[in-house]
């Protein structure tokens, strides 16, 4: 589904990615982890060419992205959803407009926007928030909007760049549950970058561990599942007390 062949990337004299090859099978939840500065996000951003490799090839869904023209690349990106650590929503657009803009970019007729946005908002549990602006939402809600925006065009791949790193543990489990649900319902290939071992362990079927811009090891694992959280003050108390036992 996603193939990286001998990709190399340097920022000035600093080599960020050194001759990395990776094969991500269709329908997998693929984790990429490693210490800070290992090149996790750079690798992920190469999968939709937000970061263009200096050499090597990136192939997604059979499409060679590295040699694609700008038009071809933009077309390919419409079938690759992406969510970010800091959500990257447009602050002056409502939740509805933040999601509808993805439909508009994908040339979906405007008369379908309302239905599609309502569907995806219900899916992430934010149907009552369509008219709000991002500043009126919590971090977890913002990430759900970002997921809805990525999901609304029904992509085949979802790239997740540290999607829970800016969130507390309770909100993290909520977001991971949404991602797991998306995988179950749509069979989407999900690539998840995280520095949190627990996040990778709970979600992923395959993992690549990076160190200093190269692959240290790849593993096939069995996801442990996500521990549900009730996201209440009491749950924080319980978690703290458990740590002291």
């Amino acid at each position, binding site marked *: 589904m996603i193939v990286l062949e001998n990709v190399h990337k340097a920022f000035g004299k600093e080599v960020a990615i050194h001759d990395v090859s990776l094969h991500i099978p269709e329908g997998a939840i693929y984790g990429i982890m490693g210490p800070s500065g290992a090149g996790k996000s750079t690798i992920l951003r190469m999968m939709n060419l937000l970061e263009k490799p200096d050499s090597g090839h990136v192939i997604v869904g059979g499409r060679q992205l590295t040699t694609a023209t700008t038009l071809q690349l933009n*077309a390919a990106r419409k079938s690759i959803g992406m969510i970010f650590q800091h959500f990257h929503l*447009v602050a*002056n657009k409502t939740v509805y407009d933040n999601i509808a803009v993805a439909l508009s*970019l994908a040339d979906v007729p405007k008369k379908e926007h309302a239905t599609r946005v309502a569907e995806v908002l219900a899916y992430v549990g934010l149907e009552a928030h369509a008219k709000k602006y991002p500043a009126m939402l919590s971090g977890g809600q913002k990430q759900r909007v970002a997921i809805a925006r990525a999901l609304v065009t029904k992509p085949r791949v979802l790239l997740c760049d540290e999607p829970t790193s800016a969130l507390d543990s309770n909100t993290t489990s909520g977001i991971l549950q949404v991602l797991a649900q998306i995988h179950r319902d749509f069979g989407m290939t999900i690539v998840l970058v995280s520095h949190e071992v627990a996040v990778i362990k709970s979600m992923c079927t395959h993992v690549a561990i990076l160190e200093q811009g190269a692959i240290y090891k790849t593993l096939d694992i069995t996801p442990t599942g996500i521990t549900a959280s009730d996201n209440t003050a009491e749950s924080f108390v319980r978690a703290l007390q458990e740590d002291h036992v």
Partner: protein
Amino acid sequence: MIPDVLVQYDTEIIQAIGETFIMVGASVVAAIVVGLPLGTLLYMTHPQKPMENKLLYQFCNTLVNIIRSFPFLLLVVFCIPLTRLIVGTAIGTTAAIVPLAIIAIAHYARLVEQSLLDVPKGVVEAAQAMGASRWQIMTKFVFVDARSSLILSLTTSIVSFISYSTIMGVVGGGGIGDFAIRYGYQQFKTDLMMYMILIMIILVQCIQLAGTFLARTLDKR
């Protein structure tokens, strides 16, 4: 009720206000029609921006810097040949529009560039990740995010244009500032000069209040 001195010069005052409106209005049009695209080009060709182009950026950047480096009075004089070429004369309100438009374009272009540079990099990245073209990145993301800042910048610019317009007396451009100097200062009618200053203060206050209100209304950050 109305001071005698204002009644005495009512025709001239109305004409001066009209001239100021023409000069500032034309500057605003030039700023929006040319300055906004020029500022957008500066942003887009800026290093690490969607259309990065060092040569084009340096050319536009230097051009804007040169225009903004001129003391405005010297720019007016410097532009006289160009003004003659464009409007056929170097004297009068129409002629005054040429240097005002030039400074307005450079002034607003720089402010537009700065406003757009304040848009979080992540917003542009998200747009690119969704397959947006450069035009779509600008119209559907960057301008939307920067809209209140662009309005505040235009408000600041308009206030500067009013100030610039007061100098246009040197080429017979007229306007409130010129009237205040010729009738108020040079003819020792201090009260008349003060009333003209008051009119300009009210004008600037109204523009600033309207700009701030509009920017606040549109700002959802």
